């Protein structure tokens, strides 16, 4: 279980990393904390020709509030989120999510940007951030652009990120004190990847996400409408119907645990 040969380049700056990405022959991959890409390379499931290591690039690890937006840098680790560095109601929600990711030594190195860019459907951040809403900040050869989280992940391990682009951070809504959040993960053991995720954020309008599927996490529109109309709970049976509309391919068990996750996430939001 050793990686195939690859070139390694430690970028000193974002420009440096973008340049390396632009000049690369063959497959180039960005590595932040390396907690997902590292094992995949060791299993030879990923065999990039060039690894561009951004672990020392400055300016990607900030957490700032400006008005009703919280900017979170791509290199912010799960551990920093777990430790409460993201402020407010948004931060409290993210803290809950971060503390359930794998175990502490992984959280010490793994990054929020890496997780979203990697886009493993079973990972926490793709679902949890989709429920928050906001934008992904992307740097490319021609400068910076923003893409709504709603559009970012298009499938398992597939995103709207271009080959020569780097995810640099997120602009997330700073939720008001009256906002309600709930997150529920069904998994086999504490710290394991999710078998089902329910994520609920009721800010300006309710956002309900069903995650850990074979595809990208998705918003459950009927559930959102029901919450917008004042519901404070969604039964498992109702959740099954709501999810089945979006994901007809689930077998009975998968449908059940995704429905439970959604129902319990709503329950936690109103707890």
């Amino acid at each position, binding site marked *: *279980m*050793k*990686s*195939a*040969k690859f070139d390694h380049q430690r970028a000193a700056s974002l420009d440096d990393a973008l340049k390396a990405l632009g000049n690369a022959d063959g497959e180039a991959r960005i590595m932040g904390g390396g907690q997902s890409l590292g*094992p995949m390379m060791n*299993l*030879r499931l990923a065999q990039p020709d060039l690894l561009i290591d951004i672990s020392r690039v400055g300016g990607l690890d900030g957490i700032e509030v400006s008005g009703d937006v919280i900017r979170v840098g791509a290199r912010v680790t799960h551990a920093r989120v777990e430790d409460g560095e993201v402020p407010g109601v948004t931060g409290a929600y993210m803290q809950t999510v971060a503390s359930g990711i794998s175990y502490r030594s992984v959280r010490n190195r793994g990054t929020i940007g890496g997780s979203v860019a990697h886009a493993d459907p079973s990972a926490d951040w793709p679902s949890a951030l989709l429920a928050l809403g906001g934008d992904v900040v992307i740097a490319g050869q021609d400068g910076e652009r923003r893409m709504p989280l709603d559009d970012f992940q298009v499938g398992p391990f597939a995103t709207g990120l271009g080959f020569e682009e780097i995810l640099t951070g997120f602009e997330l809504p700073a939720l008001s004190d009256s906002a309600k959040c709930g997150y529920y993960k*069904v998994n*086999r*053991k*504490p*710290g*394991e*990847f999710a*078998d089902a995720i329910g994520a609920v954020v009721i800010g300006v309008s309710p956002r309900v996400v069903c995650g850990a599927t074979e595809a990208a996490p998705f918003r459950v529109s009927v559930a959102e409408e029901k919450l917008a109309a004042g519901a404070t709970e969604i039964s*498992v049976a109702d959740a099954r119907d709501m999810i089945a509309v979006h994901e007809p391919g689930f077998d*009975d*068990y998968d449908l*059940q*645990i995704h429905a*439970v996750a959604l129902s319990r996430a709503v329950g936690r939001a109103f707890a």
Partner: protein
Amino acid sequence: MADGGTTEGKGIGARVLRKEDWRHLAGKAKFTGDFQRPGQKEMAFVRSEVAHARIVSVTKPAGFESSVFTAKDMPDMQPMRAPSKMPGYKGADYPALAIGKVRFVGEPVAVCIADTRAEAEDLAQATLVEFGELPAVVDMLAAKAGDAPLIHEDWGDNLVMETFADDDFGKIADRATVVVKREYRMARHAMNPMEGRAVFAEWDDRTDQLMMWTSTQVPHLIRTGLAQFLGLEQRQVRVIAPDVGGGFGCKALLQPEEVIAGWLTRHLEVPVRWIEDRREHLVTGANCREHHYFVTIHATPEGRILGLDCDVTIDAGAYSVYPFTNGLEGAMAHGNLPGPYDIEVYRCRTQTMTTNKPPLMPYRGVARPGVCYAMEMTIDALARDIGVEAHDIRTMSMVKQEQLPFMSIAKKHFDSGDYAKSVEMVVDMIGLDKIRSEQISANGEGRLVGVGMGSFVEQTAHGTSVFASWGVAMVPGYEQATVRLTPDGGLELRIGVQSHGQGMETSMAQMAYEVLGIDPSQVTVTHGDTGLTPYSTGTYASRSMVMAGGATARACRVLAERMEIIAAHLLQCERAEVTVRGGKIVSGKGEVSFAEIGRVWYLNPDELPDDVDQGGIEVTMGYRPEPDSGAFTYASHACKVAVDIDTGEVEVLDYAIVEDCGTMVNPMIVEGQTYGGATQGIGTALLEESTYDSFGNPGASTFADYMMPGATDAPHYRIDHMESPSPFTEYGIKGMGEGGTIPTPAAIGNAINDALKTIGAEVTETPFTPRRVRAAIAAANKNRQGDAA
């Protein structure tokens, strides 16, 4: 006569902290992977990617032909062969590298060597194997079909072995009016020691020896096997097991990789090393526990079990392993199914089937977790059927204390204990009455609580008579230990068994203390080296403390006598006036230190008496219990679980253990071993499963897909002990290293089914995953709707 010295309490029964732990805690232990030599080569394997195929061709990477080896390049390497005299047994030679055909995914086809492991893996990746695929036999029941593909064509079928015992159920028909039938499955899984397998080999021209450091439980057997299959004399092989990070059985067998490493270093004249990675372990080490049962219990209306009728199928995988074969599992299942119960009629057929999966190996508990699960789950089903508490069935049906020693219906010679008392104690510990009242009040709140238990009796340290009856390649005999007093009065103790987590460097030193009164800190226990220790079949069958401990006691007693002769002379008194006590030789006239004895024997022999034993102060003694049919440990485990009926998730809320392993040498180690075993049992019960698709492709090749029990899955075990010494062994010790694993799947399964009884659902297949629990609930709901309609 030595009477040791227990004034400081470091002998039998003392909770002495483990001598070996400091180096592990400090990261200073030395494992096989820590060995490095200049010029060494790393090995990586090209492994079969298909379950069943002819090898059409192997194309080595251009320019690296001399770094890649197939079986054709190693004509003098013999396939591993494990004979058995069991009637009808069909053994399959296990080629270290596949010859002509592959029979499971992960089977080694070629070995590549390079300066680094990564480069060796590059070569493996670039080596192209063309397979002519054959239909695979993946399921053990499907393997029985008349038209099933043949894994070993010359057999004519896929049956490795069958055992059969019939009986007349007419004898009990008028009394046994209640009949309960069930079907169970236990999933295949992997043993997953913390340290995987590992081997480092080099040829030593000075001694003309193959030197092999390997992560094994049985260094002497590895030597015997290596010599046999590499065409060497046994004196030309020295095997050393340095620190070994767990074994659980998969390291009690000769591994293909060991044979290959031996061949490579001998022929290439470079040191070679192979460190198993976790993916290799999960794919090629998916080798244990896979059983299928049809069980029928015949009982009186009150629940007294009178008859047992079983059909057992065992999935043995593709080959037979050296030296234990893949036939022991069936023999053990047959002999242990009736457990501690006194039944009148026993019919049992076991069929061991070959399949396109890795070769079955004996995992901690060997067959007994499966049979205990099948038996104990059926007992609880009986209890639910007739509306009594399952523990009443157990206590009513178990062999009684006053019947011991007792020959069980399956010809196990139980020695000592009070099985029913362990049941009563554990029922009390888990608080059955309180849980029953909670169950009523908690009804309908989404999580159902259940309580369940499992009991077993376990043959340990079984010896010559038992293994000879199985007719396998090695039969254990008199276990030996060597003790040697050093010139400064310290003690060297050499044992042929191997300690890989059991704390034997401590417990064996405690045994020396028990006889000689020498502080354990002054005893160096050497094990795991064929060059330094007496021949031993090694560590398995929960035998080491009984066997090597017994031998140690005997060697220490002879050493004491020899020291007393010298001391009597030095004190100018009669032999009868001196005795070894508290690490000295004492008499009314004074005392002599062990250091003084050492000085006189080694450095000032002019002071020795004429009648000194010329064997000196180094003694090797052998020991075998009489009879050697085994010392029978037993235990009852009980647990309380909560089942989330919406998700099917199971949480173990409480876990109580009452165990009796006879005289405990170190109760702290007993408890640690028991907790570790029970945690592995939780893995079997709830988490661990090596899945396969219909083509025989493994579905769990990393820890992302294979769930191991960890700290978050282990409850706070509560334990109580009984101590019924075995009348047959030194100090009444019984083996206990494996027992913790045995009743856990039964206890947890019974607790789940107790929780689900109001729904009418039962789980019958391990691991009891959320998906399986939900399926059981769904099936019960469907049944109820069917009934209503």
